Every structure is written in structure tokens, then in C-alpha cells.
């Protein structure tokens, strides 16, 4: 292929993804329609994830007023927020619950979008930015987990960082040392300590939010300019105007989500799902307490790592991530029926490993991980 052809192809690709004739409020707002069919509920999931993200920003900013990112004060400042700041326990609990709710809604959003083949031309960029956003959100989870500086936070982060370094044993020559550099760069010092906390804090409150804001802007712009995909093969697909009808319904979903989140935040402490020794301040001289695990949304990789050879899990996960990014191209000819079957299989795997991961582990190994 000649250089001119490549440049021409690229220009066409960009022109189709950013159609100049649609760059106006009329096309992107008033004339935009949303398909109505049996899977229409899935169109609200992206907005729901956005709502929980906004809650994260608001509650996160409130927590910033009191949180101290130092190994000596981090845990005490979190305790202070929970016990002495007016509404502190509620804000912290809302932050914890909405992070889980955001990740859950993103996972379901990715699965339904995949099943509806919403990544098909011209929505490839919508899909790719969406998958990148999902990765960043997992990054939020990983970096935020360390900040309370309690036993589970520090020990789980150590395990997570060690698993990055373990990749090195499967890489050839000089490349074998690269994962160690990556771990050391993230960690900032020989062991998880102040430098790690400072870096995770910076990533959590500055770097990741900026990256998410940029990608989210591009994602939403693509959604508005290309509209929602048809989503189903059925001939009988109705439509409704995006503005005001879909927007009002979306706001109603946000209202219900806020109510549920508020009730959970006020009445069900997120920490009640963890044994109290895991919530004690990290003791570098003490022994590692039992029950160290990552957050529930990492179980899909945590339990396989405990049960299967490391290389097999890493290979599978890398293939899954790469597959997700290139899905618009490698699954261009796949039918919605096939995609739905893949999405259902993935959903079953995620539910089973997340809910029953521990009993499965105990049944297969006979001990606690």
C-alpha cells in the first residue's frame, strides 16, 4: 500500500468519525433519536455510570478537605473523617458505594454494548474510548484502595504490584527486567511506603481524573455525533427523541439511583463486609492478617491467579483486553446472536467467579487463599 493511499484512508476514517455536517447542536441534540426496543434499558447504563462518576467527584472532593496522604496520618485522617466530621461517615460511605456501583454499571454497559454490536462502524472510536475508560476506572479502584492505609489496603497493593513484576519471568532477554522497572516506578521505593502512597494519591486525584475527563469528553462527543446504535436485529424498532424525552427518562433513572445510593450510604457501612483486623492501621512490623483480598471487581483475575498458572491467566487477560480494544475490527462480520452468546458467557463467568470465587477456591485447594 502506498503512503498516499494510507493517508487517504486515514483521512476518510477520521472524516467519517468526525462528520463536519453533524457538528451542530441540532444534529447532536434536538434531532438525535434513541431506538426503542426490548433492549432499550441498556441505553441508560452509560448515563448511570456517568452519574456515579459525578458522585465520585463530589464526594472525593469533600474527602480531600480532610484526608492526609502520609503514611503516619492517612489512616488517622480517614478515622477522623468517619468519626468526627459532620456527615463524614455518610460522604465516605457514598464514595465507597458509588465506586462499586460505577464499576458494576460500566461492566454491564460494556457487556450490553458488545452484545448489541454498538461498536460497529462508525462507532469504533466510541467503543475504544469506552474500553479505555473502563480500564482507567479499574485504575481508580486500584489506586484508591491504598489511600486509607489500612492492613488490607497496603497488603493487597503489595500483592498487586508483585503480580506486575512476575510478568518478567516470561519475557525474553533484557525485557525480563521491564516489569520490575514498572513496579519500582509505580511503587517509588524499595517497599510499599510513603512514595507509593504519594504516587497513588497523585494518580487517584489528579492524573486519572484528567485522563478520564479527556476520554469521557471524546466518548460522549462520539455518542452524540453518531447517536445510539440500533442494537437489535428486529425490524420493529421504534424511536424517541433524545431531547427532551430520553434526557428526562435518564434523569429519572439518576433520581432512583441517587435514592438507592443514599439509603446504602446512610444505612449500610461498606466496611461491614470486611473483618475489622483488615481495617486496622497498616503495621509494617506486624504479620500479614488473614483474608487479604483485592476489591470484588478484581476477583475475576484474583481467583484465577490463585488457582491457575500465572502465565495462563496473564495470557488470557491480555488476550481479553486486546480483544476488547480491537473488537470493532476483528468482529466486524459477527452476528448479534454470536456477540450476545459471548457477552452472556462473559457475564456468567464474572458473576460466578465474583460471587462463588471463595467457595470454588476452597473446594479446589482445601484452604483459604
Amino acid at each position, binding site marked *: 500500500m502506498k503512503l498516499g493511499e494510507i493517508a487517504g484512508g486515514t483521512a476518510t476514517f477520521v472524516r467519517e468519525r468526525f462528520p463536519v455536517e453533524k457538528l451542530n447542536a441540532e444534529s447532536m441534540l434536538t434531532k438525535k433519536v434513541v431506538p426503542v426496543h426490548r433492549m432499550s434499558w441498556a441505553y441508560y447504563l452509560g448515563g448511570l455510570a456517568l452519574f456515579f462518576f459525578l458522585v465520585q467527584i463530589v464526594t472525593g472532593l469533600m474527602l480531600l478537605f480532610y484526608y492526609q496522604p502520609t503514611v503516619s496520618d492517612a489512616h488517622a485522617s480517614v478515622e477522623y473523617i468517619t468519626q468526627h466530621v459532620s456527615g463524614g461517615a455518610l460522604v465516605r460511605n457514598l464514595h465507597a458505594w458509588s465506586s462499586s456501583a460505577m464499576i458494576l454499571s460500566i461492566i454491564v454497559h460494556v457487556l450490553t454494548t458488545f452484545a448489541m454490536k454498538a461498536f460497529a462502524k462508525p462507532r469504533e472510536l466510541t467503543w475504544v474510548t469506552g474500553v479505555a475508560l473502563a480500564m482507567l476506572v479499574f485504575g481508580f479502584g486500584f489506586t484508591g484502595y491504598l489511600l486509607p492505609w489500612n492492613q488490607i489496603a497496603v497488603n493487597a497493593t503489595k500483592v498487586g504490584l508483585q503480580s506486575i513484576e512476575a510478568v518478567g519471568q516470561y519475557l525474553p532477554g533484557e525485557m525480563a527486567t521491564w516489569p520490575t522497572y514498572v513496579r519500582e516506578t509505580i511503587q517509588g521505593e524499595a517497599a510499599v511506603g510513603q512514595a507509593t502512597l504519594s504516587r497513588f494519591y497523585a494518580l487517584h486525584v489528579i492524573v486519572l481524573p484528567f485522563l478520564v475527563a479527556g476520554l469521557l469528553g471524546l466518548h460522549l462527543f462520539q455518542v452524540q455525533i453518531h447517536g445510539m446504535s440500533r442494537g437489535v436485529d428486529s425490524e420493529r424498532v421504534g424511536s424517541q427523541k433524545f431531547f427532551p424525552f430520553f434526557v428526562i427518562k435518564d434523569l429519572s433513572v439518576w*433520581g432512583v439511583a441517587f435514592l438507592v445510593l443514599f*439509603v446504602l450510604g446512610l*444505612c449500610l*457501612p461498606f466496611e461491614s463486609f470486611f*473483618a475489622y483486623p483488615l*481495617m*486496622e492501621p497498616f*503495621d509494617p512490623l506486624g504479620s500479614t*492478617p488473614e483474608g487479604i483480598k483485592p476489591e470484588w471487581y478484581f476477583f475475576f483475575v484474583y481467583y484465577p491467579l490463585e488457582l491457575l498458572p500465572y502465565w495462563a491467566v496473564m495470557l488470557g487477560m491480555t488476550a481479553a483486553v486486546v480483544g476488547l480494544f480491537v473488537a470493532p475490527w476483528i468482529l466486524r462480520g459477527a452476528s448479534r446472536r454470536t456477540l450476545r452468546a459471548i457477552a452472556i458467557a462473559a457475564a456468567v463467568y464474572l458473576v460466578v467467579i465474583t460471587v462463588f470465587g471463595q467457595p470454588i477456591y476452597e473446594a479446589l485447594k482445601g484452604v483459604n487463599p
Partner: protein
Amino acid sequence: MKRTAVAAVVALLAALNARAAAHGEYQEFVRKSSGRPVDCALCHAHSNGPEGTAAGQIGSLSAEELSRLGRARAAFEPGANVDSPILNDFGDLILQRVGKKRVLELRSAPDRLPDELGVASDLDADGVPDAREYLEGTHPLIASDGDPWSLFVHNVRRHVFQLVMITAATLITLFGLGNLLHGFAVRLRAKESAGKGAGT
């Protein structure tokens, strides 16, 4: 001088007796009965127990605290006012309710401690009695630690006013949004029929 000597003797006795004072049988029972990991912080001021030099451990105690420790260890019968520097409020409560003598006896039957504590006490006011928290391996002094469902029910009762208000606010908002939607739909239909009328 005399006070310092007494404190030194108490400290020595305490250090020698520290391991026995930790009463690991209780911890072991709670871990087995609840299936949750527990540590010494269930009853002690420090999560590693009374031995050591950190705050809340015997090695760090001042003369006044050693004196309080001595009084707590002498509380053999129930009803004494206990304020031990190496125990937390739950540890103190156990000594107050059952007495040191009974605590030592119950080491062979730690499952009977909840009966002796009774269900009246709830130190963290989380709606789960301390005796039940002991059985379930949750912390009697941490309000956010407990059986999630019990905490949820207790907090719903506690915050019923706020919950009613937020539910009412949400319902009113949803009602308003529903009406807005209906209004727009009526306007759209009117516009469409006007368009059809003009066409014919």
C-alpha cells in the same frame, strides 16, 4: 520511692503474666465460631495484645497506669469498676460483668461468655449487642463493623426521618419529571397533528 518500687514490681509481674492475660482461648473460639479473622484488639487496647512497648501495651505504661492495671487485675468478682490501660472498653466490660475469676474459669468454655455478658450492652450503639458481636467476630466498639443486615435494619430505624424525607424528595422529583415528559409528549403530538392537518 515506695510508689516506684510497687510500680516496678507490678510491671514485672504483669510482664511475666502477660501471655496468660491475653487469653488466646477466647480469640481462637471466636475465630472458629464466626469464621472471621480476629485479633487481640477485640478486647485489648493494642491489636498485638498486652505484651510490648507500644501505646496500650504493658511496656509503655506509666506508674499511674500500672496502678490501674493492678486494680483491674484484682477485680476477681463481678461489679468492680474496671479501667484497665491495656484493655479496651469491651475488655473492661467483661471484667466488670463477670469478674477476673470467672474470665479465667471460662477459658475452657469461651462459648459461655455471651450468656454471662447478657444482651443489654451495646457499647458502639450499632444495634448489635456486644455478646452477639463477640460470637460473630465483629468488633463491639466499631459501629461500622457488624453483621451487614443487622446494621442496615438498625440504621434504617435510626434514620427513618431522613429516609422518609429523601424518599419524598425523590418521588416528588420523579413526579415532576414524569409530568414534564407527559407535557412534551402532548406538545409533540399536537405539533404532529397540526403538521398532518396542514398537509391535507
